[in-house]
């Protein structure tokens, strides 16, 4: 049930999408934050929202949480308006905090989670929420004694305490180390696999790759790319395959699948590839001797930079296989 409502058009009336922006425009004085934003997220989907600062992400988020009203266009969250959805307790959110922990002092983790649960009509059991967030052992700890990563997990627990259908996470792993991030996403994955919708924004693009069903890249208040991670990465020459191969022939390497450019420096070979998987497969099949292979480069990051800068022509990023909800625009908007 990963994409529960994915095949159902909202017009069928059966299952509304988790959220839908249609033609949303929002301006701050002369600055256009959202420029006719159209976006739809199916129930059960895990969506990553990317974009540079000023792309309109924050505005879109505050509108979908009911904190701001759009000046033009329509926004529906779980089939109703954002404020009603929030008041109904079916939406949870983990917002970014500035310098602080985002938590009140003078309270134990368990008591804070318990109080937050009581704000919701049909909350999850407190023990379940603590377990979900990996906080069972920290239930008796005072909030001001938590590390940055632990505080972050408590904020995740608060976001899911109400057993929400839709969770929004803004930069959820920002204060975590690598291990913390890994276990956070494992925890989140478990949550989303229960058929819930998760929308998250992050700057750690490697996480997006591993976690999201679909990625939406925003720029200038509108969607510039929309599709699975592999699709978006394929839109730009992003991957770099590096290995050692003494005496390799650059011309032959260029023949390999997906290779866009090949550089040979001594025994070190660097291939720029549009599809690293295919390149590695054909490298193996070619019989070229190699060792110490690594696939590096910022892959998605490079794609992201290209998409949000002006580096890529308006080539279509089409996600034919894992196509998102019908009606959602898939492609690079020039």
């Amino acid at each position, binding site marked *: 049930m990963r994409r529960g409502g994915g095949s159902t058009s909202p017009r069928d009336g059966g299952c509304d999408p988790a959220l839908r922006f249609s033609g949303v425009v929002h301006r*701050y004085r002369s600055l256009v934050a959202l420029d006719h934003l159209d976006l739809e997220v199916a129930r059960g989907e895990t969506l990553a929202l990317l974009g540079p600062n000023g792309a309109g992400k924050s505005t879109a988020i*505050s509108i979908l*949480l009911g*904190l*701001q009203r759009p000046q033009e266009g329509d926004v529906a969250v779980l089939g109703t308006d954002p404020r009603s959805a*929030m*008041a*109904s*307790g079916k*939406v*949870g*959110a*983990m*917002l*970014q*905090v*500035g*310098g*602080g*922990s*985002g*938590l*009140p*002092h*003078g*309270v134990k983790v368990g*008591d804070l989670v318990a*109080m*937050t649960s*009581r*704000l*919701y*009509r049909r909350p999850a059991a407190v023990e379940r929420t603590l377990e979900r967030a990996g906080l069972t052992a920290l239930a008796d700890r005072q909030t001001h004694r938590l590390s940055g990563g632990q505080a972050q997990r408590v*904020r995740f627990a*608060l*976001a899911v305490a*109400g057993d929400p259908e839709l969770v*929004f996470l803004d930069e959820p792993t920002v204060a975590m180390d690598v291990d913390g991030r890994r276990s956070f996403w494992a925890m989140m994955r478990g949550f989303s696999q229960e058929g819930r919708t998760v929308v998250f924004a992050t700057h750690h693009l490697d996480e997006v790759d591993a976690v999201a069903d679909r990625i939406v890249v925003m720029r200038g208040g509108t969607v510039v790319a929309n599709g699975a991670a592999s699709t978006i990465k394929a839109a730009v020459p992003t991957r770099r395959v590096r290995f050692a191969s003494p005496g390799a022939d650059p011309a032959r390497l260029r023949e390999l699948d997906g290779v866009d450019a090949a550089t040979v420096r001594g025994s070190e070979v660097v291939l720029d590839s549009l599809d690293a998987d295919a390149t590695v497969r054909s490298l193996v099949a070619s019989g070229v001797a190699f060792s110490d292979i690594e696939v590096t480069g910022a892959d998605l990051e490079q794609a992201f930079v290209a998409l949000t800068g002006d580096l890529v022509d308006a080539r279509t990023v089409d996600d034919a296989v894992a196509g998102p909800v019908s009606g959602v625009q898939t492609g690079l908007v020039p």
Partner: protein
Amino acid sequence: MTGLGAFLRFEVLRLLRNVRYVGISVGFPVVFYVLFLHNEHPAAHIAGTTWRTYFMVSMASFGAMVASLNAGGTRLAAERASGWTRQLRVTPLPAWSYVTTKIAASMVIALPVIAVVEATGLLLGGVHLAPATWAALTMVLWASALPFAALGVLVGFVASGETAYPLVTALMFLLSFFGGLFTPVADLPVVLRHTASFLPSYHDASLGWAVVAGRAPALGDAGVLLGYAVVLGLAVTWRHRVEESRAFA
């Protein structure tokens, strides 16, 4: 609205578990009462009652004020800085509930603070009042704490984490001293006597002084306090709105 009850209970418990806060709110008025009780003869007549009773009323007002200013002020400023107020906005709690719950929590704490000072007057000060007078005094002083609860929350919104503490301390000093809570207003220089009539702290204690002297509380005092409560409440609401629109813009 079970959520509101849970949130209020949470806020009150958080205040009560804070040893420093409880120490200041209860300790200050009780210690000052015991210390300054003998500045005059406890049985000396003043404003239709005895000094021990008059000063007990002063310190009960003072305690409620200290508890209210500290409940909002410093802690609220720190919470705003930490991002907790934003997190609360993305729960089903309605937007107005944050401010109202803060004020309500202050009021919940003010009542036992008043009671503790009264108990000190009874047990250590030798204050004797009819049960109905005790009850009336408690209710009048409690209701009069409302503008201070609103003021505490306002300070928490206006000040930052660093400036809240000195601001609360200054307000505590100014309101109590110039409001005649330590030195009876009649003993203050003429200029300050006029100043006192503008301060909510003076009108708060005046209502209590009237009750213990067997006089009817003056409507003027109640009116000034109500006016302060309304103005400060509106100011808090306005600051809250401004902050919200800023935080999410």
